[in-house]
């Protein structure tokens, strides 16, 4: 279903996409297309895209196609989501220890919308770090 979302095939396109949005949060999904985790995440992204289109826009990037960001953003997971607002990277305190990105598949649409909304509110106020509504520190249930 990821054919319903915009893919970016060049690092230049990615840069332009992040810089061009003035009013909305830019969500970039970095991942390997064939991976199951990535596909699950893409499902959720497709369903959510229409609902949040007034304050967020989603782009998909294949990590194997566009290598430039792999070292820069440490994209070693099958699926990574990063948030940008007005050319600034927005960090989220998810409780996992890594505030820069979401590197697992968020299964629930409502959960994901909540995270995006929090990012938008915080970013609009000028914050660089927002606190996620749900805590993921015990995600692995250890």
């Amino acid at each position, binding site marked *: 279903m990821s054919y319903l979302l915009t893919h970016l095939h060049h690092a230049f396109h990615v840069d332009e996409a992040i810089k061009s949005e003035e009013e909305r949060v830019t969500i970039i999904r970095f991942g390997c297309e064939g991976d199951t985790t990535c596909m699950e995440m893409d499902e959720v992204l497709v369903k959510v895209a*229409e609902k*949040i289109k007034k304050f967020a826009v989603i782009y998909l990037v294949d990590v194997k196609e566009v290598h430039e960001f792999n070292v820069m953003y440490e994209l070693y997971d099958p699926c990574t989501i990063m948030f940008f607002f007005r050319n600034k990277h927005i960090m989220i305190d998810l409780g996992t220890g890594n505030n820069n990105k979401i590197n697992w598949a968020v299964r629930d649409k409502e959960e994901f919308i909540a995270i995006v909304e929090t990012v938008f509110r915080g970013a609009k106020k000028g914050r660089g770090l927002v606190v996620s509504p749900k805590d993921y520190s015990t995600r692995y249930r250890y």
Partner: protein
Amino acid sequence: MATLADSFLADLEDLSDDENRDEEGAEATEEAPDADKDLAEAAILNYDDLDSVAKLQKSQRFHDVMKKVEEAMTNATGISSKGLVAEDDPKYQLIVECNALSVDIDNEITIIHNFIRDKYRAKFPELESLVLHPIDYSRLVKQIGNEMDLTVIDLEGLLPSATIMVVSVTASTTSGKLLSEENLQKTIDACDRALALDEAKRHVLEFVESRMGYIAPNLSAVVGSTVAAKLMGVAGGLAALSRMPACNVQILGAKKKNLAGFSTATALPHTGFLFHTEIVQSTPPPLRMRACRLVAGKCTLAVRVDFTRGDISAKIGRELREDVRKKIEKWQEPPPPKQPKPLPVPDSDPKKKRGGRRLRKMKERYALTDMRKLANRMKFGVPEESSLGDGLGEGYGMLGQAGSGKLRVSIGQSKLAAKVAKKFKEKQYGSSGATSGLSSSLAFTPVQGIELSNPQAQAGLLGSGTQSTYFSETGSFSRISRTY
């Protein structure tokens, strides 16, 4: 049941007797008065003579009207060139008579059907519950006659094949016995009479329908000539019909069968002839009342057009019918599909904060009281008391400590209550001694509670201008001057 039927028939006899006497002198009725008296007195189950109960066919009125109808039918071509028919034309009167007659014929057929049924019950009792329609029943009885074995009789064309099958099967196991020759003859005669009446009714209705196109073309275009004829008959003319509002037209022809004690659940409200038209009956049941009202409205318009001879070609009638059809179709359209709406931008519409006295009073209930304020603060170097003692429990802060400036902490009055208290005080002291007999000398003040006040003292205060009003609660600005 027979006695009830007899009493109803007796009523009918009275009616038709009146009409006969009014219309002509010559009595064409072949009544047997003796048999009639016997019938009324004895009230037996099997009345032998059909003529004593079924009189219409032999009445003069019936013959007159039928003759006129036949004449008019044969003169059909002469009329068509003249266009619309005027209302006081005898042709028009004939149509009104025809309407009344067709109703009477219906009643007559029912009576005859009852007669046949009673007679034939001895032979084939189950038939009356299998075949309900009176004319079908009569035809069937005529065909079967006194046969016991139904396989030799050909019933094709009289009934649908399923019914024929059921009838044949029931006949093979029937508990009936053969009728006597006399009874059989009477039954066959009655059947013939019923069928003849049916024919006559068909003739009459055909005639009315054919003429309807000339009298009220638009109305016929909207609801059909039969119903149009019925409406006109009941209303008593085109003029009367055109003066009726649409809600009345809707009710025309409603049967008021509310005999006391019988259920009114099956009685459809506000349904007359129009409810039984093709257009309304073909709509789904939930929309039928709406359709009925719509048709009644358009019908009224058509009638008014016809009355004023506005449109002879029935174009308006056809347009109205098309209108009705389109509207009914529109009602049955499914609702438009729900579009998924995107979420609004967060914080784009700031919350509407309300104000006003009501809100302030509500907020007062949760406001920080003086007591709580004192409890929240602490003096430096002075340990606070607590509810459970020794530092456990809730701390009391500066509440109840010496030197806090208040002897007793009260609940404290709200700001709004102060305004009311001020007004109250003004009223009291503004009476200047001329108090009514009902006023009390007790004053309710906020700080001390109830106190006995001396109204004279206060009145004196206000009266003399020498007293200082600087600290007065009721005083106002006494002198305002510009200071440079």
